[in-house]
Each structure stands twice: as C-alpha cells, then as structure tokens.
C-alpha cells in the first residue's frame, strides 16, 4: 500500500506564495507561516470579545499587505475577526453587528479584497453534521455582509465543523470559544 504524505504541504504553500509573488511582480519573500495558524488572541472572554488575529507573514497580495492597512491596525474594528454563537444557534448577536458591518464596508470599498469565513462548532455530536452546522454559521454572516454591501464573489464560506477547536477543553467555557466564525482575508 502506498502512502500519501501531506506533511509536506509547505512546499505547496511556498509554491503558491511564490507564484502569487511572481504574478504580483513584487519581490517580497514568501510567508514564513500561514497567518491562520497565528492564534494570538486578545481579549477573548468567551461569547463577548472577538479574537484578534495577527497578520504575520503576509505580503503576498499587494492590496491587503499595504502599509497602514486597516486590517492590521489593532485599534480598527477590522482587527476583530471572530463571531461567537450560542449553543445550537446561528443567530448573530447584536454585539458583532458593527464589526460585521465594518468588514462588509471594507469589502465594498476594496473590491479586490476577498474574505473567507470559517464556521466552527463545539465538539459534541456528529462530525459531518457539525460541518453542516459550521457552514450555516458562516453563511449567516456572509448574507449579513452582502446586505451591508459586500458581493457574493468576495466571500467564500467554509466549515471546519468541530475539527479545529480553538479551545480543546470539554466544558462550557471551551465549547463557547469553539462556536464561532473566523474571518480570514485571502492572502493573510
């Protein structure tokens, strides 16, 4: 039996990054690490605060990585990247609406920007059903952003189900952290 080794996915990232760099005609080095792996979290009281993702190692797609990029400004509402949900709920709480609107406006004014919304669930129940639940959470926020002016083509919604918990614990505090959407701009 032959084995596939996906541990070497870094060459693919490098190749992709290199290709993007070449196509963009800029000379920045390839990223050291995927930005989505950077779990630097600021002020995450479960259910209330939104995590801030560091955007390290960007510089692949010109627009997103410009100096003074509002996406990187820790004082900007655009630095907030997580929407937390109640158990078994896809309802977006009011506290997240300004942040969702701000991202939608950014997408509206920056038509080249593309966003991925990653839906997540807590780890109880069927893995596949949780993929679908996470998808619905992501779709909900996408629809809201479209109402605020983002276009369908700018936003891809995907789901990690319960496969990528932010908190690996098995209590309510952990579950609350894991029921969320993360917003990741393409190129970050």
């Amino acid at each position, binding site marked *: *039996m*032959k*084995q*596939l*080794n*996906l*541990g*070497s*996915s870094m*060459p*693919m990232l*490098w*190749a992709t990054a*290199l*290709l993007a760099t*070449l*196509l963009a005609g800029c000379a920045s080095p390839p990223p050291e690490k*995927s930005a*989505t792996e950077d779990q630097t979290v600021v002020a995450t009281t479960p259910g209330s605060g939104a995590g801030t993702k560091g955007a390290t190692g960007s510089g692949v797609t010109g627009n997103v990585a410009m100096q003074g990029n509002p996406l990187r400004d820790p004082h900007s509402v655009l630095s907030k990247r997580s929407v937390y949900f109640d158990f078994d709920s896809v309802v977006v709480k009011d506290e997240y609406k300004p942040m969702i609107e701000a991202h939608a406006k950014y997408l509206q004014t920056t038509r080249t920007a593309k966003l*991925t919304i*990653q839906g997540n669930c807590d780890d*109880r*129940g*069927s*893995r*596949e*059903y949780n*993929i*679908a*639940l*996470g*998808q*619905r959470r992501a*779709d909900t926020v996408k629809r809201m952003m479209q109402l605020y002016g983002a276009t369908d083509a700018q936003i*891809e*919604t*995907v*789901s*990690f*189900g319960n*496969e*990528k918990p932010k908190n690996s614990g*098995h209590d309510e505090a952990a579950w609350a952290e894991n029921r969320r959407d993360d917003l*990741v701009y393409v190129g970050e």
Partner: protein
Amino acid sequence: MIRLLRPALLLLALALCLAGTARAQLTIDIIGGGATTLPIAIVPFAGEANYPYPLTEIVGADLARSGLFRLIDPVGVNPRPARAEDIRFADWTGRGADAVVVGSVTPQSDGRVEVRFFLLDAVKQTQLAAVSYVVTPAQFRATAHQIADVIYEKLTGDAGVFSTRIAYITKQGPRYELLVAEADGYNPQTIVNSNEPLLSPTWSPDGTRIAYVSLESKKPIIYVQSLATGQRQVLANFRGSNSAPAWAPDSSRLAVTLSRDGGSQIYLINADGSGVQRLMSSGAIDTEANFAPDGKSILFTSDRGGSPQIYRLTLATGVVERMTIEGSYNVSPRHLPDGKGFVFVRRDGGSFNVAIQDFATRQVQVLTQGTLDESPSVAPNGKLILYASESGGRGILAAVSSDGRVKQRLTAAAIDVREPAWGPLRK
C-alpha cells in the same frame, strides 16, 4: 516564470508517494460475549511450527474475538490428528468440544506451502469443510483469516469478516493519519498523513478505493485514493465545503454534501469527479447520505423538521420520508447490509449512543452505553458495528454486535483513534 515552479511541484508529488509505514497497532479486548458460545477445538496444524506465523493461533483469536466461540484446549490429545480420518471424536466430545479443526502445513517444491484444514462436527461426527490453500509464507495471516471465515460461516450461517480490512483516523499531537489495518487490528498501514484534520473515510464497495475529507487546504475537500497505487484525485473541491462522501453500491458514483449553491445539500457525483447532479433542494441542512444496498434509496440527516433527524429519499420517485420519530437528535445513518434496517447515533440527555432501527417495525434498540459514541460503521456481514467512543479523554474505537451482546474495545497506546470504516468482503 511558471515553469520555474515545476520542480517544486514534482518534489511535492514525490513526497506524496512515500511508502507506507507501520503504525501503532490497535489492541482488541472483548468486554462481553454472546448469549451462547460454541465450544471449538483448534488443533495446531502439523508442520506449522516450522513457520514464524502461528497459523492456528490467529484462527483461534479471530473466532474467540467474535464472542460466539469458546476455544477448547487440545493439550493431552496424542498423537495430534492432522487429517479428518485421524480424529477420534470421543477425544473431543469428552473435552466438551462441539467442533474440531485439524490441518497441516506442507512445503511445496516451488517454495510455497500447502495449508490444508478440516472442520468437523464432533457431535454428529460429520465433516463440515475441507479446504486447501497453496500460498507463500507471507500470506499466512491472510490464510488464517480465510480459514476463520470458513469456520465462522459453516458454524453460524453468516459470512465471516476476519479477512476484511478496516480504515480509521488517528490523531497524535498535530498529526492526523488515515490507516488501513486487518480486521483484527494487525498490520496497520498509513495511507495518508497530514497536519490538518482528516475525516469521513469510506470504502468503495469494490474495496479498491477510499474516499475521505481533508482540511489540508483550509477547507473541506473530498479525495478518492486508490489503495493499490496510493494515487489520489480530488473528487469534489467546489466553492464552500465538500464533505460526507458515500459510495453507491456499484462503486461508480458517490453521494456528497456540497455547499456550493448555498446551504449544505446532497449531490450525486461520478467517482472521477464528473457529472455533479443535485438530488434535492431544501432550505435546511441535508447531509450524511448513505446508500441502501440495492442503490435505490438513500438515508440522510436533515434538520428540515427543526431538529436533526434521519430521512429516506427514494431516488426513482424523489419521495422523502422521515425515519426517526423519537428524540431531538438522530444522525449518521448507515444501512445494514441486508437492507432491513439501519444504525445511527442518537442523543439522549447528554449522551450520544449508537442505536439500530428496523425499517418494518420502526423498533429502535440502543446498542451502546458510552457518552460520546459516534461514527458507526457496519461489518459487511451485518453482525458487528464498529464505532468511535471515548475513554479517559481519548478517542478509542469500539465494536458491538447488532444484538448488543458482544462488545469489544480497540485501543492504541497514547493515540486518539476515530472515524472507523469497515471495508467490504474480499472477493
């Protein structure tokens, strides 16, 4: 400029084809046995001690693990019979054995060996089976499983599944692996490993391929991988999430869940990724399709009624019926191979358990007692259900007989094991 990338991609392709390595093996413990166990004496085969694999030990372990047999020690019977005609039935009925297995291992001139065995009913004093295999010593384990299959089938009336294989996913630290092992947990081979989650492995009914979901590209994408060559291809990588692969009985196409047109919906897709066709349009979640053995209907999970329940779609008519009635969370349906019922996962209070439901009577029996039992997979003879469970904060596999009596635990030291998938009968 793009040409420059080719060596890098070539290297990647080479890395993708690394040879398989043996991994931590599953250990199977039997927790409960059947209501009645059949006493059987398996006499070590004449000449088997000349080979490194203890052939009759493997046969005996297979039968004992099923929970349906009790092994009778042949110590004290001298000389040991190797042919049917050498057996003195009183030696065995006197020890309480209802059945006796004898045999021999004889080298051939070409380096292969002939393994010959006889199965006899000690009470009726009749021969039930006599089979001869000419194999290489490397095939001894496989031969032992085949012998156990013959014995199981002759004595229980059901097909044996000792020659089948199982697939499962392990997680060790940040590392995910998809493995294939013999049904007794031996000889695990890694067929994919990744730093991102792998889930939902499922065997093509012809046993040549496994479809699975990988998050290696930061989204769920379905792959189909050949077991013989290790080559894999993308089955579904559409915008959004691609998950829940389920093979049609003829292995030519699959049902999958895609979100490309909004929401999680079920589609049919050819095994080469072509010919995508949407099956239903609901505003709800539809996922976890599973084909009936005759290919005429699918079971699936949907929350169209407000909570996740199991429904059946008849493909020819498009008629959808709700199958599960009680409870607020019934998911992960898998047909029994005889088409008469299905297993699924239900939540009752805070615990998730595997249950079985009969199509005709709608009667439900809860088979497991864990708190987080999930991902059931039915053995191809319908007699055992393999599922994922949790013990001491760690993922383990467990198996339960379809009558709930026989229970097994399959564990690997210090590794999370999950997402079991029982392979088809070997042709």
